[in-house]
Every structure is written in structure tokens, then in C-alpha cells.
């Protein structure tokens, strides 16, 4: 009888290639996702050493960060450096023979949306990418995390990573969410409770009724921001919803292989009595629609609250809060719902999936925006096509939103989608760092429904008030 193990322990154990005496492991990687920003130096390293990609069939590349999302993007990328970076990925994918979705392919999109959509991401796998939001794939019960470019090169060459095991942390969300509260609010609530370094050194397993009740899209949103809490990865045990999502996807197993896979996936849960080094429990009923007011994802409060004062904090956070308030142009005591918004951005690997667009469209339907600009950037070409088929695109267009092509867009503003200095944005993305969406730009992180509400009123708004109007 083996000791009870966590989900993380089980996936880890099944991927250890070699363990050194000091505990350093060589971990096998099942899926390696690649985008244009963090890979050129890695491919160049392979060329310089005459090395090959060990498992091109397990390597999946897609350009997303630099790609224009305007409808005329077929004419090419104007910015020379961005163009060179995307062209380098085209060439590297071709030269090294890895799976590739070029800009012209309808399946192109944000790497963390494309992976699950195409069935590359499956339960029990190890998934890495030179991108911190690789944590997203943990929603499938896959051990997924971001790596640096040197590690990208290491995985390309060896299909393994040198790793030390992290500690186990359990985040349980009990009960059910109230109306108007979403997966985004769960993940921001957790960061608010633990801080952006609260997860450092841990792999988080999210569990509890509120997590089980989420769709796969919602679970991806929760795991996506595990990294914002400092965790190496976030995990959710696979269940029938997971299997239903995976079934029939282009790269999911079929027939007898599917049956074998599901019977293995059903063993992927934390055993009764397994040890967690840290446990955090939140009540689903207590979570309100949240917004960030500062320049760190931990600077989060319910929409009904007011802007805090540096005096409410201690230690190094006092200076950081003063700096954040200056940067954000906010005054302590100001009601969060009074903050006027210039721009609304709906999209990103956090909230660019079909369910996110449905949630936003439900709020927007039949109304007009009151902000200067609002854009919806679907997470992939296929999400975009589905949203058009469901009539969501027309709802957004009628309301005054720009309906864009797929990419990372204004989440990190490497393409032309950027905020001007002082411009204030309600964004469904994952980081509100200084300058993240453009130098001097001011970001408030919110759920898709809350972003839609802000677009309609021109200020941060409790979406529950708009929902009450329609009932």
C-alpha cells in the first residue's frame, strides 16, 4: 500500500525520467507549446550546437503576441521587429518540423486557447511553454507551467526539464457562486487572500463545490492566474466535464485508445488523507464581483468597496501602494464604482474563450457602449467563428464594440493595441502592472461580465445592478 498522494504527486511520479540523490529530477514533457516571443533564441541555440528538436510531434507552435488583430491583417505586420519575430517562428517551425498554426490558419490564436481547443492538452500530461500563463492547462489536471527561453531550448533538445518538486497547496472554494460572480472573481479572490507571492514554491490544486460547478472554460480562467498568485502551477482534477470537453478534439485519442485514456484519467485525483503543505479555504457565497485598483493583481477589492489608503498597509507595501495610487490616479476613499473608464478590453488567455464572450454579450445585448473604445478580441480563430455563428459578434458590433481577429492583443500590448498614457481600461486580462497595456496606461482587471457593464455605463460598475434591471 503506497502512501496517499495528491494529484500533483501522481502526475509528477509518472513523469520522472531520472532522480539525482539531492532530489533534482529530470521530468519528461508531453507537450511543448511555443510562441514567437520566447522561442527565437532557443531555436538559434539548437542551430549553433547542431541539435535537433527531439520530439517535433509533441511540439506545437503558434504566433500570438505580436500578431495584429485588425481585420486587415492579411496585409502583413507593419512593425518591423514584430514581423521579423513572427517570420522567425514561421521559419523555425518549418526547419525543425514542429506542428504549426500560422497567422493565416483559422485555428491560430492564443497558444493557451489553441492547445486545449485542438486536443493537445489532455489530463495527466506535463505541458510547458515559454509563457507564464501556461498554468491555464492545469484546468485539465495537466501539470502545466511557464519556463524561460533557456528551458525552452532544453525541452526542444531533450523533451525533459530539470526540476525540483514544489510543495502541495490546496485551495478549496466551498459552496456555490452567487449570480454575477464568475471564475475570474474566484481566481482574483484567491490572489487577494494569499498575495502575489502566496503561492511561491507551491503547486496549487483548486477544489471544492464551486470549482466542480465551473465549466472547463471557467476552470481554465482559474488556473490561468495561478501564476499571478506566485504558484508554479494550478491544477484541477479531471472529471466527466473534462472528458466531455476533450472527446472528439483533433488530437485527442479515439476508439480503444480513448477508453484506455479515460480509465487512466479517472485515477487522477488526490487520495483521501494526502498531505498538503498549505491550505486556503474560501466560501463561494462570500465572493463578490471584484476589480483591481492598483498595479499588482493582489490589489483587489469588491466593486462595492472604496480605494484604500497606504496607511491601511504595512512594510514594503506602504510605498508600493502610494506609488500605485499615484500611477493609477486614484484617491483613497473614492468609490470604485465611481472610477470612469475610457477603454474596455475583452479577450486574452484568461478570458478570451467562447463562454467569456457569451457572458459579456448577455450583459451588452441591445445596449450601446458609453466608453471611448471597446474591443472584443477572441482567443482563437475558432472562438471567433463560433461567436459569429451564435450571433454574439453582431451583439458586440451593434453595441459599438470593435470585433477583432485572434491574438494576445491589449493584454500585453506587443502589437499596436495599446493604451495611451493616462488612458484607463477595464480589462479581462491578467496583469495590471505599470505600463503593461501601454506606457502610462491604467488597468483595472475584471471579469468579462464586469467589463461589459463598464462599457455600457462608462465607469466601473457592479454588473449585478444591470442584471437586476433586466430581470
Amino acid at each position, binding site marked *: 500500500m503506497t502512501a496517499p498522494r495528491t494529484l500533483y504527486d501522481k502526475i509528477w511520479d509518472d513523469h520522472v525520467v531520472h532522480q539525482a540523490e539531492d532530489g533534482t529530477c529530470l521530468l519528461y514533457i508531453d507537450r511543448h507549446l511555443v510562441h514567437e516571443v520566447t522561442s527565437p*533564441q532557443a531555436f538559434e541555440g539548437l542551430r549553433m550546437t547542431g541539435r535537433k528538436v527531439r520530439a517535433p510531434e509533441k511540439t506545437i507552435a503558434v504566433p500570438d503576441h505580436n500578431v495584429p488583430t485588425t481585420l486587415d491583417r492579411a496585409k502583413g505586420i507593419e512593425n518591423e521587429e514584430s514581423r521579423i519575430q513572427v517570420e522567425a517562428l514561421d521559419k523555425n517551425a518549418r526547419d525543425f518540423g514542429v506542428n504549426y498554426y500560422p497567422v493565416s490558419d483559422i485555428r491560430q490564436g492564443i497558444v493557451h486557447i489553441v492547445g486545449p481547443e485542438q486536443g493537445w492538452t489532455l489530463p495527466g500530461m506535463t505541458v510547458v511553454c515559454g509563457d507564464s500563463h501556461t498554468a491555464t492547462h492545469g484546468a485539465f489536471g495537466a501539470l502545466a507551467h511557464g519556463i524561460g527561453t533557456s*528551458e525552452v531550448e532544453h525541452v526542444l533538445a531533450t523533451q525533459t526539464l530539470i526540476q525540483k518538486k514544489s510543495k502541495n497547496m490546496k485551495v478549496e472554494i466551498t459552496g456555490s457562486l452567487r449570480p454575477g460572480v464568475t471564475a475570474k472573481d474566484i481566481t482574483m479572490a484567491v490572489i487577494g487572500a494569499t498575495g502575489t507571492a502566496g503561492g*511561491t514554491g507551491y503547486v496549487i490544486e483548486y477544489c471544492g463545490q464551486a470549482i466542480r460547478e465551473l465549466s472547463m472554460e471557467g476552470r481554465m480562467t482559474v488556473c490561468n492566474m495561478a501564476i499571478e498568485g506566485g504558484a508554479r502551477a494550478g491544477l484541477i482534477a479531471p472529471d466527466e466535464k473534462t472528458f466531455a470537453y476533450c472527446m472528439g478534439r483533433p488530437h485527442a485519442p479515439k476508439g480503444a485508445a480513448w477508453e484506455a485514456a479515460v480509465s487512466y484519467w479517472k485515477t487522477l485525483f488526490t487520495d483521501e488523507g494526502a498531505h498538503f503543505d498549505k491550505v486556503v479555504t474560501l466560501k463561494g457565497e462570500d465572493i463578490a464581483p471584484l476589480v483591481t485598483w492598483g498595479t499588482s493583481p493582489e490589489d483587489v477589492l469588491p466593486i462595492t468597496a472604496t480605494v484604500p489608503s497606504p496607511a491601511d498597509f504595512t512594510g514594503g507595501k506602504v*510605498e508600493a501602494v502610494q506609488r500605485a495610487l499615484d500611477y493609477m490616479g486614484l484617491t483613497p476613499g473614492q468609490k470604485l464604482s465611481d472610477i470612469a473608464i475610457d477603454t474596455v478590453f475583452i479577450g486574452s488567455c484568461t478570458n478570451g474563450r467562447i463562454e467569456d464572450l457569451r457572458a459579456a454579450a448577455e450583459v451588452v445585448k441591445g445596449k450601446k457602449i458609453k466608453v471611448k473604445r471597446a474591443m472584443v478580441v477572441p482567443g482563437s480563430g475558432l472562438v471567433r467563428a463560433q461567436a459569429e455563428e451564435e450571433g454574439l459578434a453582431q451583439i458586440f458590433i451593434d453595441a459599438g464594440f470593435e470585433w477583432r481577429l485572434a491574438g494576445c492583443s491589449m493584454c500585453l500590448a*506587443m502589437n499596436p493595441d495599446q493604451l495611451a498614457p493616462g488612458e484607463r481600461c477595464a480589462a479581462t486580462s491578467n496583469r495590471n502592472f505599470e505600463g503593461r497595456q501601454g506606457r502610462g496606461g491604467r488597468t483595472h482587471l475584471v471579469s468579462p461580465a464586469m467589463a461589459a457593464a463598464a462599457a455600457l455605463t462608462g465607469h466601473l460598475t457592479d454588473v449585478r445592478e444591470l442584471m437586476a434591471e433586466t430581470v
Partner: protein
Amino acid sequence: MDKFTTLTGIAAPMPLVNIDTDMIIPKQFLKTIQRSGLGKNLFDEMRYTQDGAEIADFVLNQPSYRQAQIIVAGDNFGCGSSREHAPWALLDFGIRCVISTSFADIFFNNCFKNGILPIVMPQEVVDVLMEDAKKGGNARMTVDLETQTVTTSDGQSFGFEVDAFRKHCLMNGLDDIGLTLEKAAAIDSFEARAKVARPWA
């Protein structure tokens, strides 16, 4: 990768907490396909005005700290994205060691791959080192990886922990990929086993 054994140099104090990778190297500089040349844009938006003029009171613009090789930083340094451009920019500027109470996980890993030593110290030690760093360009801090100690300009010494394997790689400037490829047979046999156990993967 350059070896790291001992380093005696100027330490720049950056007490701000949660210094993120977007601050260390903003995204407009991630479009490069090289590893070098990022030092001039290290901390770009804190260091320069919109039109490119230096912001005089930013620590690395002050005459005493322009040659800094060590940063003593507030908690959770390097949080945010996985961009290795952050350690590349630090290294290109000349920084070989960062000391803080904690680091974000991916940034911490990335440092070791580039010959930069990130050191975690308790708050009370970081407080002492921060004060020492504030003394400016005439003060020299010494970091000795062999003995795992940091010594202030006035001779106070503090021990630190470092993973034995990473220490070995840093001290010898070793390339991880070369080391892993020595285990190719183990990878082959793992793949053969996995093909039977989890053929869909």
C-alpha cells in the same frame, strides 16, 4: 554561460516590493531575436522619460550606482511573466547578483541559466544589506558562492542557502543541455515505457 565564483561590487538598493518583469524589461523590448543588447533598456520606464531622457533620481541613473553589479530588492522580485529577457537585461547591464526576501519562481530559475545568482535572505538581513547598499559607490559588497556568504562593506557576514546542483553549474559555468544529453539512454527508456502505459500522450 559565465562562471560565478565570487563577486565584489556596488550594490544598488531597490526597496520597492513586487518589482515585476514588465518593470525590469517592458514588452516593447521583447521583439528582439537576440539575447544581448537589452541592458540599455533595463527598467526602461522607471529609468527614462517618454522622450528618452534619464530620470535623475532613479537609482541606476545616480552616479554612485551606474556600475552596480548587485541589486538588493524588496520582496517578490521578478514576479510576472516568464520572459528570460529580464535576466538577459540585468546581465547585459552588468548585474550578476540579486538579493531579496523572495523571488518569483520562473525568474529565479531563469537567473541560474544566465550566470546570475539570486539570493534569498530573511527580512532582517535584507534590511541590513539594503542599508549597506544605500551607502553608495564607495561601499563594496562581496558575494562568495563557494562559502555561501554575503559580506557588507563594514565586514558583517551572512550565510545563504543555494541548491547544490545549481551551485555546481554556476561555479563551473555548465550548460544544462549538455548534462541532460548524457542521460539520453534514460530518456529513451522512459519514452519506451510511456508509449505502452500512455500511448495517447
